[in-house]
């Protein structure tokens, strides 16, 4: 297609990859944290809860800067990870990390709300039938929470598709490596005459996110119908 330049297609592909990884990579943690916040009592619970919300409260630049300080190659975590071969700084993985962290509060809240809505009586029923807590989680809670997980995932995906401030601050805007759609849009908006190009990219971004949204709605409706019985 001639709608976009090869470099822009690269940005589209990268954005998709980043958003997918941010979503899928964040999901296990999101589910775990949501479950802990919804069902467990432990010291430091409120601190965890606060931490999770932090990326929402902080201006994205600050989040990006903090990421740069900790996960950069010279940062305390980044340097350790580098030794075992995991590098976030100035890689697409870093963009995924930034997007994932920015999207995390949204994901956790959606999943947590769904977990809180699961009737503990059903989980008890699972236990009486011999399922240990992890099994109860896997066979009762998780399936019932699927709509919430889906909602959390789609929120995270949308957020990751749109995330820009933390990403560009953390991993810069290197075409082919860390230039996602939003950073490309940003760059266009910084110069005269870039609006039209920016608009094209905005449209692409919106189309992708809307497609994902629509899919999630269809899926979620199917799940709901199953449970309602048919």
């Amino acid at each position, binding site marked *: 297609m001639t709608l976009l330049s090869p470099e822009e297609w690269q940005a589209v592909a990268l954005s998709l990859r980043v958003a997918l990884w941010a979503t899928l990579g964040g999901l296990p943690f999101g589910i775990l944290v949501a479950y802990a916040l919804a069902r467990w009592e432990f010291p430091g619970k409120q601190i965890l809860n606060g931490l999770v919300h932090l990326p929402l409260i902080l201006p994205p630049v600050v989040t990006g800067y903090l990421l*740069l300080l900790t996960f950069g190659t010279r940062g305390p975590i980044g340097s350790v990870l580098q030794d075992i071969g995991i590098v976030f700084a*100035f890689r697409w993985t870093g963009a995924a990390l930034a997007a994932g962290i920015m999207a995390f509060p949204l994901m956790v809240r959606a999943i947590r709300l769904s977990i809180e809505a699961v009737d503990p009586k059903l989980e008890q029923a699972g236990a009486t039938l011999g399922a240990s807590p992890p099994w109860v989680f896997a066979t009762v809670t998780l399936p019932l929470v699927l709509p919430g997980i889906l909602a959390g995932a789609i929120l995270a995906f949308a957020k990751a598709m749109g995330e820009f401030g933390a990403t560009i601050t953390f991993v810069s805007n*290197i075409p082919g490596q860390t230039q996602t759609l939003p950073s490309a849009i940003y760059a266009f908006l*910084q*110069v*005269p005459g*870039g609006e039209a190009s920016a608009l094209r990219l905005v449209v692409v971004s919106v189309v992708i996110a809307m497609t994902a949204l629509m899919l999630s709605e269809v899926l979620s409706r199917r799940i709901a119908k199953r449970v309602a019985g048919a």
Partner: protein
Amino acid sequence: AANAAEVTVFAAASMKNAMDEISARYAEETGNTAVVSLAGSSALARQIQAGAPADVFISANTDWMDTLEQDGLIDTDSRVDLLGNSIVLVAHDPDAAPVTIDADLPLAEMLGEDRLAMALVDAVPAGIYGKAALTSLGLWDGVMPQVAQTDNVRAALALVATGEAPLGIVYATDAAAEPDVSVLGTFPEDSHAPITYPAATLADGDAAVAQEFLDYLQGPVARAAFERQGFTVLTE
């Protein structure tokens, strides 16, 4: 270089158009690739402080370059003042008559109740220069409460372009290309510190390729491209 090399350039986002053109020509001519990462100067400088794999840095102001120089992150010898720019007063009204910008400019009256759009006057270069100019002309105190600051100069331009603010202070480079604003006048060069875009190769980068690209930026192709975008080229 015989082998195709890659040079990573961290450049202020306002240089996008010129850098796109220059890097394309550079690739054609040398076979090397220039990867240009465009972002705010502060973000880029911090990334360099954090060990970014950049070879060349072009800042939109001297402060961040100075900071990196103090940190020993740039190759001091390579530092050049690459580009210059000027700031102008723009208006939304296409028929507005040009004015002379000096201490007598009735800026407050021109604004009336309305806003003067600028970039952040304490943080973003265009805003800092603008504030300095207004201050040296003795106009700042009269308009200060009416200044609407944005996080970048393009957003200030947009405020004027949409008519939300009747007047604004932006770079000449931005004003020239925006059909919905008219330039009322240019601020005197001596009313603010010189607007320069310093460039340098980075201490940790690939020195040879970096210097080659930096030289290319000072060559005729680049000069033409920069001038097309309205920049003043400061190197010979």
